[in-house]
């Protein structure tokens, strides 16, 4: 693997305890793991004992763009964060959480393929990376400030072209719901990495990069990017996020307050909407940001106040640095608990006024500042459910596994149930492209999905069988899921956006066929390493096995590859996931992966085949080889 182009060749490491920084070569990771989560997970394997907690100073917080980040490749504005997650439930585990925007490309222009943060500063600091200089600046003035004020203040101090990510009061107070926020609403939220940043007393990271990024074959990059762009033309995602045509209210809300569409670096889709709601504020917004609408509509009906309440919901969450996805389900969870009499309304969180502006404002504020019952909720719904009487009776449907809020339907969709069970967090965040394939719902009308005939044809081509998208059976699901996971790993190590790639289907084409080889061709154009599609999938498989090895070292067993038990029963008319079929499919999946059937541990044979002999040796030493 040549690392001269696409990569910058250097990884920046900042030790906050010693207030020192140094640079390490990328090459030793890039050879086998390319970038993104590949680099991040390898660093964890090498450096982290499994008993280190998410909020311990020894925990690493790794910001990892990939070789395609910051190039012309459509959707190359993202980077991945890898760390031990405070959100994971029941145990903290190493996982990933991506983020879009402009910060990742800027880090590459500053000359770094990744940033590793470790240690804990004695006082609050801001890391200021300006090309070859790195400074630990005093962040005293920003402690307690929200994310918008922090960024605006730092922008004035360091220049308007500086790209900043930071935490708000929620991260400072080590809430497990804390997100890392950049600009108005780019966020790494689902894994609670804001608390990891808070535990390191790191308020913000500002980057300004002025260097060039060398590209192996600019002409070819332009050509392939143009093709990718043509195929992702009419990408339904822009509509999906801000209009969701099936939800009439949501479409009206976004259309009424939309100033413009906006989004990440180098992306033709631009799936955010910049909204200006008078009386509430301005912010870019995305699909989950609309979480408060049904409660607010119940409270206010169709009125301006309803819209302001919805806007409070996402603007305040962004400002306090909280993950909005959790609130999609937390508000319902609290309402059910309150109505059942298991928790009481209190001054800090007026549960008798769910749906009002006052409720959402106080809920977000008191979770961020850990006041009243907000202190418990700041631990995340899963951990709160443990402490509340009968909590899991209400939480189970909303939090199927790993402490992540539900995403994608598991009942009636075997492949999604399997995906969830086998990951370390909500897996669906890497699989948005499958929405377009209709893997979630073949009955949905256009423009979200294609016709069933086309979907079957594409499934034959992509997965090798149309049974892959037959939701009535677990048959052929292990194959489909293994493929999907490998492709997700590829996306997360290059790093490009899963809303665009893999391009299975294209609305711009008559027969709807996309081009799944685009990722490898983009990699070849940018870096000069001509990997075939199959070879790149192999790297994805390697990274997935490395992720599994980390899980196993943390104590993951076959029993834990599951959903909350309530999913195996019917509930409110929701179809049960068939436990026997589910377990059989899991066995099939382990066989396919070459892992031990009883334990789910990787075996030496497969690890050797994947050039992971060193990982196999380490596992053997600890007696964890399958």
């Amino acid at each position: 693997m040549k690392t001269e182009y696409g990569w910058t060749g250097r990884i920046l490491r900042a030790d906050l305890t010693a207030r020192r920084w140094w640079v390490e070569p990328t090459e030793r990771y890039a050879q086998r793991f390319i970038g993104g989560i590949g680099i991040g997970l390898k660093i964890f394997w090498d450096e982290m004992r499994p008993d280190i907690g998410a909020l311990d100073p020894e925990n690493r917080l790794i910001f990892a763009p990939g070789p395609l980040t910051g190039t012309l490749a459509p959707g190359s504005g993202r980077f991945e964060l890898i760390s031990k997650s405070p959100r994971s439930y029941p145990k903290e585990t190493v996982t990933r959480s991506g983020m879009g925007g402009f910060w990742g490309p800027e880090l590459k222009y500053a000359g770094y393929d990744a940033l590793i943060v470790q240690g804990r500063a004695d006082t609050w600091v801001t890391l200021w990376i300006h090309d070859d200089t790195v400074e630990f600046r005093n962040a005293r003035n920003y402690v307690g400030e929200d994310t918008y004020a922090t960024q605006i203040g730092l922008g004035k101090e360091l220049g308007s072209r500086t790209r900043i990510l930071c935490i708000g009061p929620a991260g400072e107070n080590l809430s497990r719901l804390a997100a890392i926020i950049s600009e108005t609403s780019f966020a790494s939220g689902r894994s609670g990495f804001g608390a990891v940043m808070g535990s390191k007393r790191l308020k913000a990271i500002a980057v300004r990069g002025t260097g060039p990024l060398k590209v192996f074959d600019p002409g070819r990059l332009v050509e392939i990017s143009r093709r990718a762009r043509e195929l992702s033309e009419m990408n339904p995602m822009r509509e999906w996020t801000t209009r969701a045509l099936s939800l009439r209210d949501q479409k009206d809300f976004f259309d009424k307050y939309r100033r413009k569409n906006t989004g990440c670096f180098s992306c033709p889709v631009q799936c955010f909407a910049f909204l200006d709601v008078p009386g509430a504020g301005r912010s870019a917004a995305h699909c989950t940001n609309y979480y408060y609408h049904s409660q607010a509509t119940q409270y206010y009906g169709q009125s301006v106040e309803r819209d302001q309440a919805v806007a409070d919901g996402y603007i305040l969450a962004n400002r306090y640095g909280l993950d909005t996805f959790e609130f999609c389900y937390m508000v319902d969870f609290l309402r059910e608990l309150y109505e059942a009499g298991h928790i009481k309304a209190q001054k800090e969180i007026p549960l008798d006024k769910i749906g009002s502006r006052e409720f959402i404002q106080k809920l977000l504020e008191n979770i961020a500042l850990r006041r009243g019952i907000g202190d418990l909720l700041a631990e995340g719904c899963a951990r709160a459910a443990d402490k509340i009487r009968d909590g899991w009776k209400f939480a189970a449907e909303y939090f199927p596994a790993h402490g992540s809020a539900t995403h994608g339907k598991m009942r009636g969709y075997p492949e999604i149930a399997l995906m969830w069970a086998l990951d370390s967090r909500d897996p669906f965040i890497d699989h948005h492209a499958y929405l377009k394939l209709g893997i979630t719902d073949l009955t949905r009308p256009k423009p979200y999905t294609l016709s069933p005939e086309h979907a079957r044809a594409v499934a034959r081509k992509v997965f090798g069988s149309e049974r892959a998208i037959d939701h009535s059976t677990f048959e052929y699901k292990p194959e489909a899921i293994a493929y999907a996971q490998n492709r997700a790993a590829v996306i997360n190590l290059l790093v490009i956006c899963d809303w665009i790639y893999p391009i299975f289907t294209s609305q711009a084409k008559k027969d709807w066929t996309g081009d799944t080889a685009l990722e490898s061709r983009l990699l070849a154009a940018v870096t000069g390493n001509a990997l075939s599609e199959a070879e790149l999938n192999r790297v994805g498989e390697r990274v997935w096995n490395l992720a599994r090895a980390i899980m196993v070292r943390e104590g993951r067993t076959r029993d834990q590859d599951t959903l909350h038990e309530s999913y195996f029963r019917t509930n409110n008319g929701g179809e049960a996931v068939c436990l026997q079929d589910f377990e059989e499919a899991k066995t099939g999946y382990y066989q396919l992966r070459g892992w031990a059937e009883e334990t789910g541990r990787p075996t030496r044979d497969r690890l050797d085949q994947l050039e992971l002999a060193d990982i196999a040796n380490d596992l053997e030493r600890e007696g964890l080889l399958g």
Partner: protein
Amino acid sequence: MECFAMEREAVDKFLEEGARERPAEEREFSEVYYRRRKSISAEPKICAGCRICEVVCSLRHEGAVDLERSRIFVKPNPFKGLFVPIVCHQCPDAPCYFACPESAIEIEGTLGAVLINEEKCTGCRLCGEACPFNVIRFREETSKAFKCDLCQGDPECVKWCPMNALGITEFGGEASK
């Protein structure tokens, strides 16, 4: 565009006289001012701030992703949802052209583009001072100037803008977008 239409005759006259053959230093203000020209127009109201224009510009002109050396740049203000693409207007009065003491800036005949001849440029930066939009950038090492050359009439940034926030406006001829 009306004022330019009124001057159509004057433009035609200069074109007929073969303005493009005359050396730069001999050209007169009116001759430059009334020239037929194209320029990139930008609409901040719909610009999403994605920076694709900067990326394609630098790939074409520098052969790398090098946003500090692109000829167009987007000034971001995410908190106001305001992204302003800063483009060279190929100004009718071309202040940079008249500021250059070395005749290193030329006006191209067919497009009316204001071009910098990097060989003649001595790096005095007077053009940068004269530019009302601050779109002329300078090489770090040599301090030589470079700016938008309209990509021979078919600007990459306009072709790639996903929001259609960029367009081409022609003066002294049919306006098009």
